[in-house]
């Protein structure tokens, strides 16, 4: 049976990527509708993607088997819990939540309901990352000594800049992507985090530039640059790069390397375009097939929690100028 799917909230712009991908996946799932605590935003999206708008989220849950939650980070607990209580599987936008208490409550709710709670880490599905993981596992570059990772972007607007809603700035927004790849590709956990954090690029007060240094349990060390350091004039949204240094070689990943450069005469601007398989579509395919088969696929809620812990440890380190254990309660 084809699962019926919905989207909860268009607060996060990735909801649009998922909505387009769901449209493309009509053979695999039926995109039923949208609910949103901001009804005008939800109605507009429903119109755009030609699906129904559900004023009452419970009604959406009655007509679906799975939803994607794209509300503000701080509302994830509320919306994910409601969906699970409504009896549907959930794919939740990253970061899983803004506090570990919220994340644990979500994991508990999914266990109680015996329903899947997965986290949206689409970068796992980019071809360069998947192949890099295979090269690491093949042993071709020896043991992994270190990883130099970046996830750059432009300064977002709206609730992303409000700590109560987002839980933090660039460190909260981007750290989790690279931290997830490190854990997933190397099969290890993050032990401790050191961070230098600042506010440089926008008008706001929230952190927008940082360098994190991670110590991993397998002896590898890594840095993550999550900065919103790309300005309006940058030819693309940002990047995700990994320099993976092994004892016998190096893997260089530029997951969204531009394959085309557009020099626009009218706007006097330059744009980088990257091509290849759509990571969002691949991620949703995986999630939906996991729902269909009853075999959870992709990143788990525990993966979401572990990466959130890295971002939160970075904030503690940035404040105290010393390395912090990723698990707050460990020695």
């Amino acid at each position, binding site marked *: 049976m084809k699962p019926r799917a919905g989207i909860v909230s268009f607060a996060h712009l990735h909801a649009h990527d998922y909505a387009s991908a769901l449209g493309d996946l009509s053979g695999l799932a039926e995109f039923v509708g949208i609910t949103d605590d901001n009804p005008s935003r939800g109605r507009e999206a429903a119109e755009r993607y030609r699906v129904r708008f559900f004023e009452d989220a419970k009604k959406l849950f009655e007509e679906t088997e799975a939803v994607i939650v794209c509300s503000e980070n701080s509302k994830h607990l509320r919306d994910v819990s409601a969906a699970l209580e409504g009896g549907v599987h959930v794919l939740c936008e990253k970061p899983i939540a803004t506090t570990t208490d919220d994340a644990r409550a979500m994991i508990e709710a999914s266990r109680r309901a015996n329903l899947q709670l997965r986290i949206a880490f689409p970068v796992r599905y980019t071809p360069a990352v998947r192949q890099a993981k295979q090269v690491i596992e093949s042993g071709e570059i020896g*043991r992994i*000594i*270190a990883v*130099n990772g*970046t996830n750059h972007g432009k300064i977002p607007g709206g609730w992303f800049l409000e700590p109560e809603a987002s839980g933090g700035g660039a460190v909260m927004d981007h750290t989790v992507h690279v931290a997830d790849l490190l854990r997933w590709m190397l099969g290890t956990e993050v032990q401790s985090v*050191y961070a*230098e*954090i*600042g506010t*440089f*690029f926008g008008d706001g007060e929230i952190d*927008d*530039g*940082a*360098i994190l*240094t991670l*110590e991993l349990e397998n*002896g590898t*060390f*890594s*840095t993550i*640059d999550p*900065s919103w*350091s*790309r*300005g309006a*004039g*940058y030819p693309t949204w940002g990047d995700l790069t990994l*320099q993976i*240094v092994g*004892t016998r*070689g*190096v893997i260089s990943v530029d997951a969204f390397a531009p394959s085309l450069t557009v020099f626009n005469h009218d706007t006097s601007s330059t744009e980088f375009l990257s091509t290849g398989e759509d990571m969002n579509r691949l991620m949703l395919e995986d999630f939906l097939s996991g729902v269909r088969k009853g075999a959870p696929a992709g990143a788990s809620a525990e993966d979401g929690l572990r990466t959130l812990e890295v971002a939160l440890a970075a904030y503690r380190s940035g404040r105290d*100028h*010393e*390395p912090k254990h990723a698990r707050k309660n460990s020695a």
Partner: protein
Amino acid sequence: MKIGLVGAGFIGCVHLDAYTKIPEAQVVGVADVRFENAVAAAETSGSTAYRSYEELVAGEDVDVVDICLPTIFHREVALKAAREGKYVILEKPIARSLEDAEVILEAFSDNPERLFVGHVVRFFPEYARLKNLIDEGALGEVGVIRTSRKSPFLSGWNDWYADWRSSGGPIVDLLIHDFDFLRWSFGEVERVYARNALGRQYGRLDYALVTLRFASGAIAHVEGHWGYPAPFCYAVEVAGSRALVTIDSTRYSPLMVLVADGDGEDGSESPERQVGKSPYQSELEHFLACARTGQEPAVSGEDACEALRIGLAAAQSAASGKPVNLR
């Protein structure tokens, strides 16, 4: 000006080649403990080969001593040359320890204009232009800087690069370039945190990731690699509130010469084919002009000492796992 070159290893030969293109520079002698290296280098420069600094200055009338020895020997030869009233060009890092660096500065305290330290990156045209842009305010407030410097593993006398005690590894020997450039561009460093491969994996390989926090608030991420399995390369990215500027040596190739059946390009510390004047030539021309005119050089002994201070702090942090405060 009459130049005596001490040390005909990798960087000594780079300097020697640059001197051949500087009309006022006359290399009169080359000294190297590996005498066959001195002989070969002397031949290319039409000068005389010696076994040591002492033999060189006894046999030739030398104005400028260019010291391209392994770092741990800088102190001894620089002090002798200072005593003998020579102008001294000292390859970076100024020394292996702050104590040695301070002793060298002290030896030149009456004639600081006689000491030049080879922080050549300041003479790379793209770095110099970047510095201008920063000074003009074209970047606005600078937030996050990323630099990268990767080199195949170098073979030196007695494999001294592989000996941490002699070279300090890439953190002290290689990243000193970036530490000097960053301090020149963004001011004093407040705090340093670093990790490297030492003690995890070793051999002829080290990789380091260093974070610098500047008094200005800016943050720099400095990547260094010895044993990089590809030709030498470097990159810089400076993100400011008004502009983002990048340098990437792998993407800048105004000239490529492809020869069938030729050997592949080997890695080395500087690009094999230099388009136009090499930064080493610019650096040495500048130093020689300063020696001639008494003009203050672009890099002071104190600058070199401060760059070393950052490098040693990074090495200390890498060893301890704790940040090191510099101020």
